[in-house]
């Protein structure tokens, strides 16, 4: 039975001044009960808009200008959101009301739509929570959302979506805010629920691994149009459309290592020349240790003077980064990887332990030997500074250029080295896209002529194709200048593509440290094994026998 039919859906947003944004342009798809259909695409592709249209949540001035949506054969106007369609959103913290207990939030839909008595609603809530794998449903019902973990919260949201036995669930990035191991559990749960209860799931996601993991059919969106549609195996393995091919090619693979990510477009000769020019800044490649971290401990204290509580964010971490290598730190949120990076960058003083720089003795300038690139390029660039001034600041401060004209020349070289036009110096950061901003952040870090570049989740907030470009850029810069890189990521596939040696962190400790190939082919520690098993990736197709 068909859970959802979309025919020629077009959604438009007036932008003012007579211009119109066509967010979705003639999209059609059909979804059977028990089937998971994935809508994938990069930001702005229109996938979330389709999800919102199905739930009847297109807010004015947005407007459905053509096409129709049928839910189990009924037009959308006759459908009750919450009863006939369940919704699961990205962030379980904000999709639950923090002021009410789980019980009242679950019971609300049951009592309103199914007209159940308080007792019947409670019994049904317990049943639902058990179905979504909550171990102690009675206790969960009495809890407030903040008392639950992220994974438990998302299970509660799913239970609420299922509460009135809908034929269709729309899940918009349901696992994006979760750690990999929790993500794997939630994905398995959604697959099981689709199979057992015969629910059609419209899964909106940007993560190709998630698609490979649980979807049956998939639509790839590009600028509002569906460019490729079909069974998951054929779309992911043999895409026909050029954009779909590029998009799938740009997904970092965890099963084998490539030298570069395939990105459409040829190499830029200007960038190559500029990168060679940067070599002047770095001293001849050295071997041996660049950074030695010994027994690093970072403790955070909280509570009053009488009830001191302390939390060890980093708990006795030791490792060595060799000159010219790419060292990876990987782990789930809260494992202490960013704190470790901040200590090395000099942003936090450690409670105990030392960080030694071999490279520092060899640099002649006073400039700091370590620079950093941050996760969110929208927060890491000062919105009030022109790019040129921002990039020139370290150069002038450390007198790395003799005159202002020399500094401007250096800025132009830096911009070209990261693949931007030298005229970018005139503009403010808001004139650039996310990927371009991250290039600017890299240029700024290189301006102080570091020996070591720390990249903290440098691509986590970027689209896959942009991520591929940034990772290629980091590789090229490393090859051109002999920079040492410390790459921090929660994404094992990215780590695999980039790193020579890898440290796996869990709860403030490094549980495994080995060469990249060894780690991925023969992981030693149980935690590493479970992490690797949990990562959604394209090779899931093989595991599913598709």
């Amino acid at each position, binding site marked *: 039975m068909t859970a959802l039919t979309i025919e020629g859906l077009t959604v438009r947003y007036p932008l003012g001044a007579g211009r119109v944004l066509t967010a979705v342009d003639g999209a059609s798809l059909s979804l059977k009960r028990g089937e998971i259909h994935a809508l994938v695409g990069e930001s702005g592709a229109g996938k979330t808009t389709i999800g919102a249209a199905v739930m009847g949540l297109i807010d004015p001035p947005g407007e459905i200008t053509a096409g129709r949506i049928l839910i189990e054969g009924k037009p959308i106007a006759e459908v009750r959101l919450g009863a006939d369609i369940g919704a699961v959103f990205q962030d379980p913290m904000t999709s639950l009301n923090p002021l009410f207990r789980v019980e009242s939030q679950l019971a609300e839909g049951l009592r309103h739509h199914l007209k159940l008595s308080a007792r019947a609603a409670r019994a049904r809530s317990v049943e639902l929570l058990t179905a979504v794998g909550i171990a102690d449903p009675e206790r969960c019902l009495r809890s407030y959302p903040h008392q639950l973990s992220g994974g438990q919260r998302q299970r509660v949201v799913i239970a609420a979506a299922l509460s009135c036995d809908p034929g269709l669930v729309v899940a918009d990035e349901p696992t994006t805010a979760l750690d990999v191991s929790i993500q794997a559990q939630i994905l398995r749960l959604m697959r099981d629920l689709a199979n057992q209860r015969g629910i059609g799931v419209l899964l909106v996601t940007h993560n190709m691994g998630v698609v490979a993991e649980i979807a049956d059919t998939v639509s790839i969106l590009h600028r509002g149009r569906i460019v490729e549609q079909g069974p998951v195996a054929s779309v992911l393995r043999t895409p026909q459309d050029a954009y779909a091919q590029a998009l799938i090619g740009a997904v970092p693979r965890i099963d084998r290592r490539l030298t570069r990510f395939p990105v459409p477009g040829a190499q830029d000769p200007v960038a190559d020349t500029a990168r060679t020019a940067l070599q002047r800044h770095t001293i001849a490649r050295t071997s041996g240790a660049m950074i030695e971290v010994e027994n690093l401990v970072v403790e955070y204290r909280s509570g009053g003077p009488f009830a001191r509580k302390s939390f060890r964010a980093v708990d006795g971490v030791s490792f060595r980064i060799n000159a010219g290598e790419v060292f990876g730190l990987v782990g789930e949120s809260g494992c202490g990887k960013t704190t470790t990076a901040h200590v090395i960058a000099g942003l936090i003083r450690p409670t105990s332990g030392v960080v030694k720089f071999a490279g520092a003795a060899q640099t002649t300038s006073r400039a700091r030997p370590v620079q950093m690139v941050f996760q969110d390029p929208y927060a890491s660039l000062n919105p009030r500074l022109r790019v040129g001034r921002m990039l020139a*600041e370290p150069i002038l401060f450390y007198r790395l250029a003799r005159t202002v004209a020399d500094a401007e020349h250096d800025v132009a070289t830096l911009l070209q080295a990261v693949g931007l036009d030298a005229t970018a110096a005139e503009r403010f950061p808001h004139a650039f896209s996310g990927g371009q901003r991250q290039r600017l952040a890299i240029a700024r870090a290189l301006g102080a002529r570091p020996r070591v570049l720390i990249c903290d989740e440098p691509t986590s907030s970027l689209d896959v194709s942009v991520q591929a470009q940034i990772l290629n850029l980091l590789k090229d810069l490393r090859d051109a200048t002999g920079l040492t890189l410390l790459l921090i990521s929660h994404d094992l596939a990215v780590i695999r593509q980039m790193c020579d040696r890898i440290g796996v962190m869990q709860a403030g400790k490094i549980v495994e440290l080995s060469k990249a190939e060894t780690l991925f082919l023969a992981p030693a520690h149980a935690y590493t094994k479970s992490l690797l098993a949990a990562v959604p990736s394209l090779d899931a197709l093989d595991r599913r026998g598709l």
Partner: protein
Amino acid sequence: MRLPLSVLIAAVVALLIILAAALAPWIAPTDPTDLRSLNLLNAEIPPMWTAEGDARFWLGTDNQGRDLVSAILYGARVSIAIGLAAVAASAVIGIALGLLAGYLGGWVDAVISRVGDVILSFPTILLALLVAGLARAFVPQGQMTVWMPFILVGAITIHDWVQYARTVRGSTLVERAKDYVRAVRVIGLPAHRIMLGHILPNVISPVLVIATINLAGAVLTEATLSFLGVGMPPTYPSLGTLIRIGNEFVFSGIWWIALFPAVTLVILVLAVNVLGDWLRDRFNPKLRGRE
């Protein structure tokens, strides 16, 4: 963006008063501070449109025979100058202390914030009275006219800097935690360059709004102090001083000495306040796009 009519009117009125005050020495008929030009025979002449009015004195004269138009222009000049200076001093001190408290944290923050709390627990006028009253005791009698404006600026600033410091401290705490500040810290820039070059431009807009609203407050505080007799002396009157002088004669039927300076003060403060309110709403992201 369209300016509401009320804001447009307020802007024009405020600009006119401020311009007229600034140009007082060139446009005022007489110089009210020049004692030689005064003639007691001209004292207490009512406005020109009344029966006993004199065409030379449009708004009449005060008890010493000073032309009220000139006195108001010169008085507004003094009031506005003191108000602007007090706002500037408060803003500079408040921004500096707010940046230090927010950026450095720890005991620096504790000291600045607690001192601010203590000061805010006193009413503005009480503190200003205390400072102005005390300072008067130390100024030699003959030099009161020279020193009084500075004393008044100090008396207003001692209370008003706290509001700037608190606002800037709060925004600094937010900005400090952003990655662009971390990035310049990693570059190794010294704290003063990070505070002035990077954080300040990002926290300044609310300060401009407070400054506008506080300008009206500072002018009022100055007028109050002068009205109470601890402000500008009668030989060099501000608007507040003129109202005080006029106040003694109101019940004798000589209403114009108090009324015209008071009306000027009210119009000025109202206009500046309307501008300030509008600016505050403009800079409030929650109200944006409602128009």
